[in-house]
């Protein structure tokens, strides 16, 4: 999968990745990687990422059946992180990249999570991102990202859905919602719909459907 990502990236930019030329088994230069993540937007530009049919198919064959990245700099950051995945300090590096990252860097880290081995170790980071009030950061974890449905606890997944409703993020963008629906989420949606009606506010189609008030 790392190779597919690199191929897609290389078709668009020749800007070197921090891991280029590093022999297998050699330690990652964490400082260089962190710096490169910050500079990616300036180095490779922020062109929107549009994949052709062959690329989409290659990614799908590698298990990536969601839009892997929104922009070229994001894909470059994802590739840079994937290069470091075998490093013993990788989990700490991911945490540091998120903690010290600006919004674009944080989004890239969140879009990298579903591509990583033992992804469940990053569930606390993902739950923290769901609490962000920065909309692009919230969307990077909640939308077109399979991580939450696969790895978040019911508590955190349900809170994420409520927050998506709060921010009016279309629930169609949340992957795997149907498989995570349950009585508690329905109860929360019903309470939220009642709260909005008591306040004289409209109830969206997404909210009504989740509250099982109309056929979804």
């Amino acid at each position, binding site marked *: 999968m790392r190779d597919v990502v690199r191929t897609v990236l290389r078709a668009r930019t020749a800007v070197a990745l921090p891991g280029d030329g590093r022999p297998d088994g050699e330690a990652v230069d964490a400082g260089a990687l962190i710096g490169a993540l910050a500079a990616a937007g300036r180095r490779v530009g922020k062109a929107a990422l549009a994949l052709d049919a062959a690329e989409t198919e290659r990614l799908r064959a590698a298990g990536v059946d969601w839009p892997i990245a929104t922009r070229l700099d994001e894909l470059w950051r994802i590739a840079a992180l994937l290069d470091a995945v075998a490093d013993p300090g990788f989990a700490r590096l991911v945490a540091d990249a998120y*903690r010290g990252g600006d919004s674009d860097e944080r989004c890239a880290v969140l879009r990298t999570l579903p591509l990583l081995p033992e992804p469940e170790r990053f569930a606390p980071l993902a*739950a*923290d991102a*769901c*609490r*962000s*009030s920065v909309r692009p950061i919230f969307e990077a974890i909640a939308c077109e990202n399979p991580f939450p449905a696969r790895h978040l606890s019911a*508590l*955190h997944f*349900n*809170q994420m859905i*409520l*927050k998506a409703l*709060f921010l009016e993020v279309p629930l169609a963008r949340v992957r795997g919602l149907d498989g995570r629906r349950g009585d508690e989420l329905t109860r*929360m949606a019903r*309470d*939220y719909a*009642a*709260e909005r009606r*008591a*306040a*004289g506010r409209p109830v969206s189609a997404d909210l009504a459907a989740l509250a099982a008030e109309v056929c979804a």
Partner: protein
Amino acid sequence: MRLFDPHIHMTSRTTDDYQAMAAAGIVAVVEPAFWVGQPRTHVGTFEDGFASLVGWERFRASQFGIRHYCTLALNPKEANDPSLVEGVLALLPRWLEKESVVAVGEVGFDDQTPDEERVFARQLELARAHDLPVLVHTPHRDKKRGTERSLALVREARFPEERVLIDHNNEETLPLVLATGCWAAHSIYPDTKMDEERMVALIQRYGAERIVINSAADWGISDPLKVPKTAARMRERGVDEQTIETVVWRNPLAFFAQSGRLDVAALEAEPAVDQRQLYAGNSVLRAGREPVVRR
């Protein structure tokens, strides 16, 4: 009429806001420690934040004739960061003793996680130990359940309900709060939470007892004049003056006076202003501006 805004994040507001608030009759504010938008990653950032609330911000308010009090706590959102919890809780005892601290807060729930509940309960004990009332934030998401859980936690801890102010109520949570001995605050916001018209309807239905309003103005879209604007709307809708005064002055004063740290007599008097003063060498004035002095 004197006005009290018992929940406003002045740190995020400008001196224009202070001037407009003073002109509208606001003479006292309570600024709760809360989330600052950008997540904090060091315990030391909290300590500087607490110092700012009892120091620089208090001075800044005084320069406009507004008395500034604060509430301190580890907020529910950041209670989920294990690298912060113990460090911030260990800081609090020292800062809770400062004279302008009139409650522990905002405590409460955000995502309603077990960590949030544990930190909430521990801060109730801190409030008891420091003889302070408590300001409880209620969550945006799953609000009714979060309010029920907060009230249950207060009850289980046997914390005196009359020393608890439950914040950000709406039509569904207010009756739950009034059924206990806790006080109920309402944040009047431009778009979310509660607006002036709905607030008037709640006062007309439930009366003024234990009811408080605030602007909760912060770094987002919010309005530091929502307390005077809601008072004006109540007047337009025929709410009597005594009820209005109870909501915007007597109630917040009575609630926070339970801390023993509000000088009620001084609050009733005209506040003195002396813009010639400096704080750590800094003035709120900029070059060439004539200081206001009012005694």
